[in-house]
């Protein structure tokens, strides 16, 4: 598909003549380029405007996300400009989707400041996403080389040390988000925390939009929550925590809240994705310095991750967040109420948890990604899940995950403590059966029914939610296999 006219112009007089030159001819399309081990690679889904040549579109993305502007500038000649130019080096049509292409682009390490997600993203998802010759643009995946990865802290705590601190091994962690999300007083809110933790959960959680509102200011929330946490620890002999959301308007406010959480003895704090990449990195460094686990709620992500044609794949956000240094990230449930194709979710979970992620197009993973001993990031499954799905959750999501049942705990007909106990019994029964070699995918309902014989709360949970499934087609799916949808 190489067209001689579409390649770098080597005659410098012609190359730097004032005016507008196709990006290809400026050197941003180079199909012969062999990416270096130290290059940062990105694959974009591009949808060129009608009549725009796809190679030119790919070259334009490379140009606009690195050195280029719309016209030739002589000042390029003061630099070793081919070194700084990103190179579109490969272009593949998207299988089964006419008009869309996967464009592979290589960026030299020197284009980026060390340890800065803000700097990385200002290039990769900067101006280029509004570029007129493209109808749509989506960042599908990235390969971040160890040379650059090692300039990032990575998860403040990591899965292994989190488990050691919590003294919890061999099963998913259990959590619940406090409901209703808004309106409870601090005193009533702490009641829900206490009941859920006493019933058998490891964690309870503030919701993303609980900060410091008229119905409950943050300091009251922290005090009452920690009363609930400590009472539950004393009632069970287990280490427990409540994700105290420290999200606030300014860094100063967030540090103040985080310090108060630390001084109260909380094991974990929480932030929202909407605070921004720099604030997230600051909080990750604070969490490492202060030995706290850092939970990230991905509030806002669906505005740009859900549609396949435009935006950023969540697997890229997960990768950035592992670099940025959070310990928990909401990463999908497959079976719950929120977006989640099984193959896409698998790719995201691998990105969070594996020490070396292999290319796997069926899971949306375009590149090998070694993680260079950055800690592992604990995925969190939350949104519309209940005890009756436990065998599916463990089958899909494995063991290193926090399963969060909000409504599935607090909405239990016998109360919050019973709801928590139902979830814990269901989980322990499924893990025990899996370890014994039983086929939990097929026999799960029977295993749960048997466990419910000695656990009335589990029987009630199974009866209440037996018909609840969220079986809709996913909007974000992979392109290399027929689309699978969530099992019922």
């Amino acid at each position, binding site marked *: 598909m190489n067209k001689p006219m579409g390649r770098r112009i080597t005659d410098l007089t012609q190359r730097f003549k004032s005016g507008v030159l196709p990006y290809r001819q400026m050197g941003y399309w180079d199909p012969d380029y062999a990416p270096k081990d130290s290059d940062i690679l990105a694959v974009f889904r591009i949808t060129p405007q009608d009549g725009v040549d796809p190679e030119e579109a790919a070259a334009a993305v490379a140009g606009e996300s690195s050195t280029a502007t719309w016209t030739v500038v002589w000042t390029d000649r003061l630099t070793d400009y081919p070194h700084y130019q990103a190179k579109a080096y490969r272009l593949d049509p998207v299988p089964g989707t006419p008009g869309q292409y996967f464009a592979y682009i290589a960026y030299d390490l020197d284009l980026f400041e060390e340890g800065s997600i803000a700097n990385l993203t200002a290039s990769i998802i900067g101006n280029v996403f509004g570029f007129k010759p493209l109808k749509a643009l989506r960042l599908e995946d990235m390969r971040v080389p160890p040379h650059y990865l090692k300039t990032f802290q990575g998860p403040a705590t990591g899965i*292994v040390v989190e*488990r*050691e601190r919590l*003294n919890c*091994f*061999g*099963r998913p962690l259990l959590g619940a988000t406090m409901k209703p999300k808004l309106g409870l007083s601090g005193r009533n809110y702490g009641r829900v925390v206490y009941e859920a933790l006493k019933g*058998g959960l490891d964690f309870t959680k503030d919701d993303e939009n609980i900060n410091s509102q008229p119905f409950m200011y943050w300091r009251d929330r922290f*005090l009452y929550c*920690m*009363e609930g946490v*400590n*009472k539950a*620890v*004393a*009632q*069970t*002999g*287990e*280490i427990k925590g409540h994700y105290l959301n420290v999200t606030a308007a300014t860094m100063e406010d967030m540090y103040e809240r985080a310090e108060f959480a630390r*001084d*109260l*003895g909380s094991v974990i704090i929480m932030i929202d994705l909407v605070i921004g990449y720099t604030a997230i990195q600051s909080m990750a460094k604070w969490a490492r310095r202060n030995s706290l686990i850092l939970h990230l709620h991905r509030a806002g992500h669906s505005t740009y991750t859900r549609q396949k044609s435009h935006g950023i794949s969540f697997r890229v956000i997960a990768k950035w967040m592992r670099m940025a240094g959070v310990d928990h990230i909401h990463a999908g449930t497959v079976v719950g109420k929120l977006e989640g194709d099984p193959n896409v979710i698998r790719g995201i979970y691998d990105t969070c948890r594996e*020490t070396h992620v292999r290319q796997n197009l069926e899971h949306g993973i375009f590149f090998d990604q070694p993680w260079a001993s950055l800690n*592992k990031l604990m995925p969190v499954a939350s949104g519309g899940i209940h005890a009756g799905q436990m065998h599916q959750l463990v089958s899909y999501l494995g063991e290193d995950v926090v399963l969060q049942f909000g409504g599935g705990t607090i909405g239990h007909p016998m109360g919050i403590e019973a709801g928590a*106990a139902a979830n*814990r*019994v269901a989980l*322990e*029964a499924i*893990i*025990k059966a899996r*370890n*014994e*070699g039983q086929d939990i995918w097929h026999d799960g309902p029977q295993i749960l029914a048997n*466990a419910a014989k*000695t*656990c009335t709360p589990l029987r009630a949970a199974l009866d209440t939610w037996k018909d609840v499934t969220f079986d809709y087609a996913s909007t974000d799916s992979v392109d290399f296999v027929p689309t699978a949808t969530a099992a019922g």
Partner: protein
Amino acid sequence: MRITQGQFSFLPDLTDDEIRRQCAYAIDQGWAVAVEFTDDPHPRNTYWEMWGIPMFDLKDAAGVLLEVNACRKSHPDKYVKVVAFDSRKGFESIRMCFIVNRPKDEPGFDLARTELRGRNVGYAIRPYAAVRPAGQRYG
């Protein structure tokens, strides 16, 4: 109260055969199984006493059960747990942990509050059993 540390504390106590099957799973994964015991069940009592070192080269889960039973016989009124260690890169930590023996009576924990400035509260948790010296707790 029933202390609910470990993987299976919400289920009925495991039978010997169920313990053996869990140990067989651990051994199949390539993990080394160990037995530990304590009379101080504080949730942050990290270092229980070791009933020998982890059984690194053991291939048969029945061998673990022998050690579990020997430990239970020597310490019938203490907590005994089975722990599995994974030495693989990326883990190098505990992968399983479940209680296989507990005292007949579990009195639980005292929660002491110290009131501090600004409505802050300092919390301390102490097992009632640990008020007595080691060796004189539980029966």
